[in-house]
């Protein structure tokens, strides 16, 4: 091998460098274009203003609220009543006060733990905050008069004439307005997840429930205990397990039914659209344009039209998916048909097979892998689509999600539904790729 001096190497490298530079000129221009475009998008989306407006604390609050529940201690000055309720809900009022609330409507003490104590007497309160001091507030006429410890006012405290709002830690909050006084205590967990608060099953342990379900004494004279336990769980008014389960089923039904229909409509049409099966160019053209049309209209538009005609529900979603995907699957299948090996069809034909037998034994086996894998892939992706078009109004779990998000003061419900959707999508994903591996030799193609 010849030894090249350093200088020689440099001389030889020069043309290479120039040609590399030349070759990368176009990509570099493209890259510059992309960067310019992103700058444009930055201004078009007004990201600077958005960042100023963004309430990241809202997100943090939401996430923590999703795994916690709060108990309200409320004293209403107009009605003069006093109650302790989970999330302030009427049906979740404590009959006997929890141990951290003592006293009666006129004079009571709320122990928020770690030295945070609220004492209420008449229309005045004293909130003891460790490392800060005691906040005194009193409703005098129509004004809330607040007396703070000396020193600067901390940012968790907002004292005005009409409202006092103090939240020294995430889990403790005191609100005092002219109408009422509210103390919130946050605790981790999903309260009332299994049984409604008012049910006598609430708060029982699993082994207790197990022995109850097999024991003879009926809690509810109409039902056996195990039925009673199941129906209380299923009909839990706050978490609506039954309702949510039906919605999940609806979504999966939409995806499967829509895709099956699309596959069965798409397959025969694909034969018509494939140039090697249909010599008539005009019909081919028409069918292809039909594919493009139903695909182009898009699932969004189809579902909006179908909602008008068929109302809310899985039928609407199924039909929207079926229409759109007849186009997509039909196009894919017709491309697959155009790529098949003629020899197998001729071989089958040589044994004296008629037209249908040639299709059945010469063509179908060749496109079956494509058919199956595309079908499964579409079922999987349509589970996601069904959730989305459900949210637009077709029903199913998507609609439940949007509804809970709109009406919800309790993010734990939303979080629960989100987790269920994710579990559902992952399960469909797993099932589809498992089936693909099982049914198609050669594994996870696509």
């Amino acid at each position, binding site marked *: 091998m010849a030894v090249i001096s350093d200088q020689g190497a440099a001389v030889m490298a020069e043309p290479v460098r120039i040609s590399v530079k030349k070759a990368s000129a176009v990509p570099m221009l493209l890259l510059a274009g992309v960067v310019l475009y992103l700058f444009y*998008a930055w201004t078009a989306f007004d*990201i600077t203003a958005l960042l100023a407006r963004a309430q990241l604390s809202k997100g943090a609050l939401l996430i923590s609220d999703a795994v916690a529940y709060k108990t309200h201690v409320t004293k209403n000055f107009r009605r003069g009543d006093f109650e302790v309720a989970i999330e302030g809900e009427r049906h979740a009022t404590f009959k006997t006060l929890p141990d951290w609330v003592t006293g009666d409507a006129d004079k009571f003490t709320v122990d928020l733990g770690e030295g945070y104590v609220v004492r209420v007497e008449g229309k005045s309160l004293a909130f003891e905050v460790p490392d800060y001091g005691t906040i005194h507030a009193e409703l005098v006429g129509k004004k809330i008069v607040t007396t703070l410890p000396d020193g600067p006012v901390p940012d968790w405290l907002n004292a005005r004439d009409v409202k006092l709002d103090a939240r020294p830690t995430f889990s403790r909050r005191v609100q005092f307005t002219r109408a009422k006084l509210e103390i919130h205590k946050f605790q981790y967990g999903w309260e009332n997840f299994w049984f409604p608060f008012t049910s006598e099953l609430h708060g029982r342990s699993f082994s207790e429930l197990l022995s109850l379900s097999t024991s003879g004494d009926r809690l509810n004279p109409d039902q056996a205990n195990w039925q009673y336990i199941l129906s209380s769980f299923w009909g839990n008014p706050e978490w609506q397990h039954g309702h949510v389960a039906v919605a999940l089923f609806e979504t999966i039904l939409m995806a499967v039914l829509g895709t099956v229909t699309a596959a069965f409509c798409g397959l025969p049409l694909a034969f018509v659209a494939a140039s090697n099966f249909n010599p008539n160019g005009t019909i081919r053209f028409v069918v292809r344009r039909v594919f493009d049309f139903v695909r182009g*209209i898009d699932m*969004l538009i189809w579902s909006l039209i179908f909602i*008008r005609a068929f109302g809310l529900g*899985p039928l609407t979603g199924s039909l929207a998916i079926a229409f759109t995907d007849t186009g997509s699957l039909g196009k894919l299948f017709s491309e697959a048909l155009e790529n098949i090996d003629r020899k197998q069809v001729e071989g089958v034909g040589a044994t004296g097979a008629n037209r249908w037998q040639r299709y059945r034994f010469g063509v179908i086996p060749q496109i079956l892998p494509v058919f199956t894998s595309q079908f499964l892939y579409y079922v999987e992706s349509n589970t996601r689509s069904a959730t989305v078009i459900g*949210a*637009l109004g077709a029903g199913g779990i998507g609609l439940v*999600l949007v509804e809970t998000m709109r009406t919800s003061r309790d993010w734990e419900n939303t979080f629960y539904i989100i987790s269920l*959707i994710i579990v559902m999508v992952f399960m469909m994903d797993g099932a589809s790729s498992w089936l693909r591996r099982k049914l198609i030799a050669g594994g996870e193609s696509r």
Partner: protein
Amino acid sequence: MVEVMRQEVLALEGRRRLYTGLSLALLLAVVLSGYSEASALNSGGFLQGLSKFLDYPAQIVSQAWDQGWAFWALFPKFLPALIETLNIAAVATLIGAVFATVLSLLSSRNLEVPPAAIPVVRRIMDIMRAFPELIIALFLIFVLGASPVPAAIAVAFHTSGALGKLFSEVNENIDVKPLEGLKAVGGNWLQRVRFGVIPQVLPNYSSYFLLRFEINVRASAILGFVGAGGIGTELSRAIGWGAGSETAALFLMLFLSIVAIDQLSSYLRRHFVGADNFS
């Protein structure tokens, strides 16, 4: 002897046919019962819906017709919304493609990345792919307020996973000889990727990128419907107010732009990427 074999083959064939027939019948039963179940769960019935199927399109078309020439004036009015939707899709696809490239390089077995990283990155991509965009968009709309950004982030997140998987398949099919050559002359990992991998995968990447852009235009139109801005938001407003001619104009714009992008992307793929390179 031949007769015995013939009998056996025929028996096998008969049994196979029976199984195929049975599974087809089962599938048919599932579909039929599924439809009757779906029809029962639906608030409107199937047959009565069928008669009303064309009512809504007819209604909005007739309202649009009544507008006469003024109907066409609606198009420039909604053009900014359409551009916003296209921007959401483009930004999401670009950002998604960047992340997808990084993820795919880290999850290809032939690129000398730490073997422990490969399954981890693959699982990450699976999760990103499976995570429904709707949920991310709704959450971000809550935090950031209604604007196109939540939709762009949500779509980009999904795109990273979806493209990442396709890109890593492309990476694994490349010719490794250029890489060995670059290694022999002392190129580091980044240089090997830049000069050995990227030129080989760029055509396929572009093809998948264009396909994804097409899909993302649809996705961002849909996310607009839940409050992310763009043409979807206009559409939901128009439908909510019962403004038939505006609805018709928006439907038409969305349809035409989707078809145009579809055609443009397949033209680009055929002419610049090369016919043999698209899947």
